[in-house]
C-alpha cells in the first residue's frame, strides 16, 4: 500500500535560546552561549493509510519537532516529507493549501491552542468557511454537527474556551481539527494534560473517530501505556533518532533495542505490591552534545567499542521490524 505519509531522511536543527536559569547565570557572568540542537536526525518513517503510529521517547528527543514537520508547521532542514507522494515543502498555491488542510495537529495544552477571545462556533467554524467547505448559511448547523461528533453539547457553541473543563477543551480542539475534513491527525501529547478518567474518554473518542472517518494518526506520547493501547505500530525515539520500530505487540512483548528494553522495564504499572526500581544508569545526554556513535552508549549495559565510534543504522531485523543496534550484527 502506498504510504499516506513518507518521511525520508528528515533532519531538523535549531539554534537553541537560553532558559531562565541560564539567562540569570549569564547575566551574572557565566560563559553560556547559544548552541545548535540536532532535534531530529536523519529520520526515515512511513505511515500507512488508516494506521495509528505511536511515537514514544523521553523529553527533548524530538517527537514534537517531527510531528510539527509532518503537520507542515515547520520545514525540515534536510530531507523531505511526502503526503500521498507529494513533497509538502515543494507544493505551491491551491495544492499546498489543500494538503495543509488534510493534515491537522492536536496539541497537549488545549487552552493555549484555542483563541480565548473567540466563541466555540468561530473556533470550529471559521476555517471550513474560509476554505469554502461550508457556506455562511450552513456554518451554524455544521458546527453543531462537529460538536456532536466529539461528544459536546451543541448548545454550548456560543461559549468561550475558559468556560469549559480541560477534557471539554481538548474536544473543542479535536472538533476544530475535524471540521476541515482531514485525513491525517498528528496528536502531540493530546491526552497528557488530562486526568485519567477524562483521558480514557478522549482516547475512546480518538478510536471511534478513526473508525468513522478513516483517519490516520501519528500519536505522540511519552506515556507507554497510552501508546500501547491506541497504536498499531510504534516507533521509539532517542536523541533525535528512531532506534526501533515495529508492530505494537511485537515491541511490547519483545523489545530488541536496549533503550526500548530499559524504557519498558521502568514504566510504572499498577501493582498490588511494592516494587523495587532498578534503573538505567546515567542521565539523558544533552541534544546539543550528543555522544558519538550510538547515542545511547553512555547508558547502555551492552555497549562495546564499536558503539562509541559508529552510528548503528536502523535495519530490518524481522518482517516489519527495525532496530538500530550493533548487537544485531553480531548474531
Amino acid at each position, binding site marked *: 500500500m502506498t504510504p499516506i505519509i513518507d518521511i525520508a531522511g528528515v533532519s531538523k536543527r535549531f539554534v537553541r535560546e537560553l*532558559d*531562565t*536559569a*541560564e539567562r*540569570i*547565570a549569564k547575566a*551574572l557572568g*557565566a560563559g*553560556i552561549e547559544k548552541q545548535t540542537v540536532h532535534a531530529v536526525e536523519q529520520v526515515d518513517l512511513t505511515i500507512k493509510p488508516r494506521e495509528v503510529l505511536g511515537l514514544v521517547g*523521553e*523529553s527533548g528527543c524530538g517527537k514534537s519537532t517531527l510531528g510539527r514537520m509532518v503537520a507542515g508547521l515547520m520545514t525540515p532542514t534536510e530531507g523531505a516529507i511526502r503526503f500521498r507522494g507529494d513533497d509538502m515543502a515543494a507544493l505551491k498555491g491551491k495544492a499546498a493549501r489543500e494538503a495543509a488542510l488534510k493534515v491537522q495537529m492536536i496539541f497537549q495544552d488545549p487552552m493555549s491552542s484555542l483563541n480565548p477571545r473567540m466563541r466555540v462556533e468561530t473556533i470550529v467554524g471559521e476555517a471550513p468557511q474560509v476554505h469554502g467547505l461550508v457556506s455562511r448559511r450552513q456554518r451554524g448547523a455544521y458546527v453543531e454537527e462537529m460538536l456532536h461528533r466529539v461528544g459536546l453539547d451543541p448548545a454550548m457553541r456560543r461559549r468561550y474556551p475558559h468556560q469549559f*473543563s*480541560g*477534557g*471539554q477543551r481538548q474536544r473543542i480542539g479535536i472538533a476544530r481539527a475535524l471540521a476541515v475534513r482531514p485525513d491525517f491527525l498528528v496528536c502531540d501529547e493530546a491526552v497528557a494534560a488530562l*486526568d*485519567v*478518567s*477524562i*483521558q*480514557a*474518554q478522549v*482516547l*475512546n473518542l480518538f*478510536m*471511534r473517530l478513526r473508525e468513522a472517518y478513516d483517519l490516520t494518526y501519528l500519536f505522540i506520547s*511519552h*506515556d*507507554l*501505556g*497510552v501508546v*500501547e*493501547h*491506541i497504536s498499531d505500530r510504534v516507533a521509539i525515539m532517542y536523541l533525535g533518532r528512531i532506534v526501533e520500530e515495529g508492530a*505494537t*505487540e511485537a515491541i511490547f512483548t519483545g523489545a530488541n533495542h536496549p533503550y526500548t528494553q*530499559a*524504557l519498558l522495564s*521502568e*514504566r*510504572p*504499572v*499498577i*501493582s*498490588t*505490591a*511494592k*516494587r*523495587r*526500581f*532498578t*534503573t*538505567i544508569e546515567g*542521565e*539523558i545526554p544533552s541534544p546539543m552534545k550528543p555522544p558519538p556513535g550510538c547515542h545511547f552508549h553512555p547508558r547502555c549495559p551492552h555497549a562495546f567499542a564499536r558503539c562509541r565510534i559508529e552510528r548503528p543504522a536502523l535495519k530490518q531485523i524481522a518482517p516489519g521490524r527495525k532496530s538500530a543496534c550493533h548487537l544485531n550484527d553480531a548474531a
Partner: protein
Amino acid sequence: MTAPLLQVENLATHFFTRNGVAKAVDDVSFTLSRGEILGLVGESGSGKSVTGFSILRLVDAPGRIVSGRILLNGEDLASLDAEHLRAIRGKRIAMIFQDPMMTLNPVLRIDTQMIEAVQAHTSLSRSAALERCREVLAMVGIASPDERLASYPHHFSGGMRQRVAIAIAFLHEPDLIIADEPTTALDVTIQAQILAEVQKLCAGTGTALIWISHDLAVVSALADRIAVMYAGRIVEQGRTAALIEAPLHPYTRGLIDSVPSRNKRGVPLRQIAGMAPSILNLPKGCAFRPRCARGDGACLTPPQAAEHRPGQWARCFHPHLAEIRSEVPA
C-alpha cells in the same frame, strides 16, 4: 500500639473567594506511622496539594484551615505559633515540590545554599556542615558530590535538580517528608532512578513519606498505604494491595479500570462518565453521585467514612464489598 507519627483529624481548609467558599479540603482524616509511605492520589483539583500545604501550615489567604487537628508526635501543628513552626519546617517536616526551583535558589551555588540549610537548624561548623552535604548528595545517587557542590542549579538537568532538592529534604533526617508530584515532570528512566533512591532513603532513615501524585501506577509501586481524594475528601484509604485488588469505592474502581494498561488493546477503555464537579458547587450528598452507576436516593446525604474491611475505609453507601474483581485482561 504506639501512637502514630502523624495524625490528621477532620482537617478542613477552605478558600474564601469572590465566587463563594471553595472547600478544597473537607473533613480529611488519616494517620501515618514512622517510616511509612502514604500515597495520596486524586485528579486535578481534588485537594492533594492543599492537604500537603495545610500540614506544613503553608496555606495563604484567601485560604484558611477552618477546623481540624494536625498532630505530629502528639503536638498540634494547627495551633503552633510562627516561631515554633519555623523550628519544625525543614527540620522535622520537609517538603519536596514538583518544581525543584521552589527549593533551590538560582543565583547561589549549591554548597552555599545547602550549608545554609544545615546551619538553620544545627550549630555545626562550616566544614562539618559541608561533610553532611556530601553525605546526603551521595545518598541520592549524585556522583562526584564535590564537583556538584561547587556548581549552580542551571548546571544541572531537571532530574539532577530534583535529586538535590530531595537531598536537602533529607538533610536533617526529618520525621516526615511531604512530596508533591516530585517526579511528574521527569522522564520515565529518571523517575525510576529517583523512586529507587527515595525508597532506599525512607527504609534507611525511618522517615515517613506522603507522596502526592495523580499517577496511581507510581503510587501503587511505592506506597504502603493509599488514600484517594475526590472533591476535597478522602473517599477511600487502605493498604496498597487491598485497595488496588479490591477497591471499595466506585470512584477508586473506575480510576483503576480506566488505566490503559488494564484494558485490552484495541477495545474501548472502560471510562468514568462525566467530569469532576466544581468545588464551588458540589452536588448534594455524595460528590461522586452524578457520575456513579450505583448511586440512589440514599446518596443524597453525605456518606461518612466507614471501615468496611479491616484497615480499609470508604465514604460510600454502596461499596463494592463482595464482588470478585473483573480479571485484568491480558
